[in-house]
């Protein structure tokens, strides 16, 4: 499995710190940011393959951030992460181009699987271009 670059955006600092550590522990290149704005800034300066976005964040929320990301870099795959089980926001996210959505709390293995699938899709998309 290639080492791919992951960006996690979540306003819950404890969650963010831990998941970043655990993903790094699994040999991924992981960056954590606490807001949608920070995530957008980061994808400008760094190459990112997969973004994990919390739907509900203060300021720019997950859905808006997703829209911006897809505008800037359509090839980046996004996985929506939600503590709120609104199917609508999940479906909305999918319609806006998110790869999938998962509900908190999510076992890390499950999230990792999704991230890998997303990365594979990104590779496929790039190959097509």
């Amino acid at each position, binding site marked *: 499995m290639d080492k791919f670059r992951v960006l996690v955006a979540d306003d819950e600092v404890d969650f963010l710190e831990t998941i970043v550590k655990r993903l790094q522990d699994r040999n991924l290149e992981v960056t954590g940011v606490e807001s949608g704005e920070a995530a957008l800034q980061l994808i400008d300066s760094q190459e990112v393959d997969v973004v994990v976005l919390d739907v509900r964040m203060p300021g720019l929320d997950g859905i808006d951030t997703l829209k911006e990301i897809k505008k800037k870099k359509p090839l980046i795959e996004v996985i929506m992460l939600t*503590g709120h089980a609104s199917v609508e926001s999940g479906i909305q996210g999918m319609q806006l181009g998110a790869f999938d959505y998962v509900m908190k709390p*999510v*076992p890390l293995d499950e999230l990792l699987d999704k991230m890998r699938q997303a990365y594979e899709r990104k590779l496929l998309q790039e190959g097509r271009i």
Partner: protein
Amino acid sequence: MEKAYLKKLWWEIVITIVIFSIVPLLVLGAVGYRQFSASYTAKITENLKTLAENRQGALDLFLEERVAQLVTLAGTHSLDRLKNEDYLNKVFNIIESRSRSYMDLGVIDQEGHHLSYVGPYYSILKGVNYKNEDWFNAVMASGIYVSDVFLGFRKVPHFIIAVMVREGNRNWVLRATIDSDILENIVRAAQIGKRGDAFIINGNNILQTTPRFSGPLLEHPTTPDFAATVAPLVEEITFDGEESLFGAIPLKIKKWVLVIKEDPTEQLTPLLRARYLAGGIGLAGILLIILGAVFATRSLMNELQAMERKKAVSDDMVVQSSKMAALGKMAAGIAHGINNPLAVIGEKAGWIKDLLRKEDVAQSKNFQEFADAVNKIEFHINRAKKITHRLLSFGRRLEPVTEKVHINRVLDETIDFLENEARYRNIDIQTDLAADLPTITSDSSQLQQVFLNIINNGIDAIGKNGRITIKTKYIAKNDRLSIEINDTGPGIPKELLDKIFDPFFTTKEVGKGTGLGLSISYSIVEKLGGRMLVASEEGQGSTFAIYLPAG
């Protein structure tokens, strides 16, 4: 709706209908009757007048003929000739042979001496001198005289006609006595009906003929005084408490008045019949109107009540669903609030687990304890997660949708909600769910509400210690699912069975139940195209069966 208000409304509608229907009916009836009565009364009055005129004509004709006969007889014979009693006798016989009204005939000179006489009272009358009699003076003054009726010697009613003849320088008088039988006959023809009367009175209101009812001859009649009548008149007069119709007409020859009396009730019988008929029809009409008003109002009220009930159910459904929507939002909020810390805990536990894999920690003597603790934390996070996810899905389901529904799953979730309560009351919830149940397109949250209602009712019915059995089945024959929920409660009395789906029907204590649960459930099932039935026997528990279309 309040009973008193309904009663008031009922009365208002009935009274309005009745008044607006009866008033025109009465007016129509009254006007029609009045018109008919007026024209009929006019006709009766006219008839009476005609009758009176007709009789008067006959009477006058009779009297005029007698007078004319005498005038002719006197004018065509000399006194000397008529003085001869044999000749007078011959003449009398000729006259008498044609009109049997003459009783006697006499010739009187101007001194009042009876010169000759033909008749039954020869010996009495022959010697009488009339010089001082009123009638003699009257005939000497006016030439023709007709007397009032009197009984005379013979006690037979009769009257006198006398004519004076001027012959040279002397006057003489031809006098005849007329039997008033003929008058009686003419008058009697006007005594019509059972109670009608007719008679002649003179200027002093003395009866000249014998009436049927109004008193004896030659006395005052027991009727109002018409003696002063100068022109034909018809009057309705109440006399001695008796209402009568009187017609009076004066005769031409003599100052007599013919009076005809009629019983108006007799004459007006057709009018009275019309009155009764109109009254009867009117009464029947009024009765019909009232009956119609009552029936119409009753059905209107029933409709109103039914509508009121339906409205109450739908209102309650709206309230219920908005309550549920609020509940759903709250549930989602709580779940979200819990999910985030849960996620943090999960990640932390995961991180500890990650770290435990590194060898330096593995040598710690409490390594196994750590690992167990972390596993337990993960296990319980998973448990909590299940709860929050169920809460979330519950919240989501409260929005009305059509979706693929697994009935068994909905039932399982519903039972999960109620399991604690059931366990607390020592009620065993058993399920027998068919594995081949197809998924259907329906509204799972609404169905869940139905199941919740019924199972809840079952738990309430049992109280403590019992069993609720839930069975699902696919009926291929008509492509339906059946869900049977049976409880071991006391059952429902037969007389209440057909009421339990009625709105506001409840057997629970006041304040405990709205009486709407089953009613709402029933309408939900109907709305989803299904059917809900109940079977119950007292002491044997109750079974609710819901059939839903599978297609």
